[in-house]
């Protein structure tokens, strides 16, 4: 695997490679593990997560701008409406005939990006978007444990962020304490795209109006869920299920993942 990655990197022009590695704070190795998704019952099987790598930080405006410069079809005024809504890169300003982030926003996470744009960015880096399972597996880590979700205040701290409006642009990436895996900003900065964001079992009606979500919500409650008090996770699943791949929102960005460990 290591050899494969190195081989790939050799095909990328050195200048580009150097630029990207400067802006990118690298990926964290995530070892294999298991976790029980929110929507399964206590006796349901655990979901295994294979070893993978995850960007330590969300993609910044600076990084996304470099991508757009190299791939002009992802410019704000060039992207087809099929792949991104009007609000795509809404926070970038036009100067010298090009849309670009303001200097003060360079290290802030890129937002107003569609799933297509995020996926294209990751593919351009020989990466992909993380799956919901991978993302949630890393997100349940606290500062000291792989699974910190039972720690005091773990949920409340996340909920505190959910309770703030998205009126202002998010802060710069990487300013928080890294979690167990050395990964930053899993909570408290932005929502993030996942590869299979719309494959979870929550329908638009969060209770029980269709057969697919019977396991999750029973009679307007959540008796079937592993931890019905895990409101933070409910909100993430709820948020993801409200999305279409072309949506571009003021609090939604992404980071990339790749198979295997280094």
């Amino acid at each position, binding site marked *: 695997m290591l050899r494969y990655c190195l081989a790939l990197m050799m095909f990328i022009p050195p200048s580009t490679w150097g630029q990207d590695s400067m802006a990118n704070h690298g990926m964290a190795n995530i070892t294999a593990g298991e976790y029980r998704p929110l929507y399964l019952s206590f006796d349901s099987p655990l979901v295994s997560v294979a070893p993978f790598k995850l960007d330590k930080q969300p993609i910044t405006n600076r990084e996304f701008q470099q991508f757009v410069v190299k791939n002009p079809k992802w410019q704000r005024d060039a992207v087809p409406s099929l792949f991104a809504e009007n*609000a795509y890169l809404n926070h970038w300003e036009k100067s010298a005939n090009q849309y670009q982030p303001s200097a003060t926003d360079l290290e802030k996470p890129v937002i107003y990006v569609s799933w297509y744009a995020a996926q294209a960015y990751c593919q351009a880096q020989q990466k992909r978007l993380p799956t919901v399972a991978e993302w949630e597996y890393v997100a349940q880590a606290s500062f000291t444990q792989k699974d910190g979700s039972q720690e005091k205040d773990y*949920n*409340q701290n996340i*909920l*505190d962020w*959910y*309770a*703030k*409006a*998205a*009126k202002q642009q998010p802060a710069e990436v990487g300013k928080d304490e890294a979690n167990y895996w050395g990964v930053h900003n899993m909570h408290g900065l932005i*929502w993030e795209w996942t590869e299979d964001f719309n494959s979870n079992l*929550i*329908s*638009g*009606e*969060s*209770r029980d*109006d*269709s057969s697919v979500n019977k396991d999750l*919500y029973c009679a*307007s409650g*959540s008796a079937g869920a592993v931890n019905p*008090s895990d*409101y933070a996770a*409910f*909100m993430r*699943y*709820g*948020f993801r*299920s*409200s*999305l*279409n791949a072309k*949506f*571009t*929102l*003021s*609090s939604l960005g992404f980071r990339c993942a790749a198979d295997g460990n280094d």
Partner: protein
Amino acid sequence: MFSFKSQFNIKTFNSKTLNFKTKVLVTMVSAALALVSCAQVAEQSASQSTSSSAKKDTSAIGQLPVIQAVLTHAPNVPPPITRNYAAKVVINVETQEKVMRMADGVDYMFWTFGGQVPGQFMRVREGDEVEFNLSNSPDSKMPHNIDLHAVTGAGGGAASSFTAPGHTSTFSFKTLNPGLYVYHCATAPVGMHIGNGMYGLILVEPKAGLSKVDREYYVMQGDFYTKGKYGEAGLQPFDMEKAIKEQPDYVVFNGSVGALNGEKAITAKVGETVRLFVGNGGPNMVSSFHVIGEIFDKVYVEGGKLENHNVQTTLVPAGGAAITEFKVDVPGTFIMVDHSIFRAFNKGALGMLKVTGPEDKIIYSGKQADKVYLPEGSATQSIANPTAAVVKTLTKDEQIAQGKNVFENNCLACHQSNGEGIPNAFPPLAKSDFLNADHDRAIGILLHGRSGPITVNGKNFDSVMPAIALNNEQIANVLTYVLNSFGNNGGQVTPAQVDKQRKVAPANSDNHG
């Protein structure tokens, strides 16, 4: 505020000509104009003119006339529906997440329909076809949707209206059943969306309309769960644990403590009939809705067709409603409460209806001199262990402003809104020699309660006041408010002074009986 009462005598029209309809529309527009502060006036007028033409254009092919719904924020209610035909009613609502006042000094991130709690009141007619456009503000962090209990269909519209930030969803439904219905957000986690204030009322008027009344108001109860205790200052986050345990810090009418108090009280004149559209958003508490000093002449039980008469207290379930009607016969301030009474006096579930006009001593005499009988004797009640909240130092003016709220929630019921008290029962705080003489003694009375004979302004009192569960800041604020109100001598009480007295044994009961 509600001056349209005389404008609805049009049920006597018996022809259904276009001319008649035009008159109806004109009446509706003027009614809408009478709703001062109603932002939809311009929109309404504009849509009326288009709907007139739409009607002419489409009558040939049998389509319904299109009408833009008038939406109002609590406590206002849109004007009664006067048309006698079905329409296609367009309702546009935007969900917004915004920080607003929960109580004086206390802020909360509310999730709202239309920017306030409760959401806007919607009024449609049985048989109407409603086109509902739900927009979620681009500034929202959460997806939202709406489940209207007036909808017949799976989810009540929830799945059809599930909307990410910066998007709009549209769905339609037909109003099959008349009644007063709750609507609310049903996005995961449902409890949190409701708990943050996402609910309101939609009235489906029966085809025959509701009986004519003089005043209509919109009152909706809700319970809130904050990290800090009741009254703890600052921006308070939602507390999941308390919500699951169903232990609210706040139970309020119309979205905040004091939303219907003082100058914001609803009003009526003696002899008028008042109709209250009462809803309960929950998420957890069932309301025992009661107006102190009034009897509901009529209650549409649970907002449905069943009429009950001569009701003292009506249950309003979480996610349910009731319509109450009563004629106000005498003047005064009538206190609306959730008669689960600790909620009223300790969590905020208290509002006011101010009735002005001539007194009628036959119906109500007012207090007549008599000897006080208090079987509780000298017992004092301490309600809780108040702990000092972390608050910033307030200026005297801020203390007075916050103290006013404490007064209205804790003191007003006995000492009255003008501080005059009740002769022979509750001593006056207005121009009170007893109060102005000794601030520390006043602090002690709030902390420890008071019983036994005292003399205030030359009058003797012999009654009981229980200790009030307030923290140091609240006591300092309410005393500063009282000292600077009701013709008293002014002055200021600091939390430090209160703290000092808290550590002193209740020694100043010099006349303890």
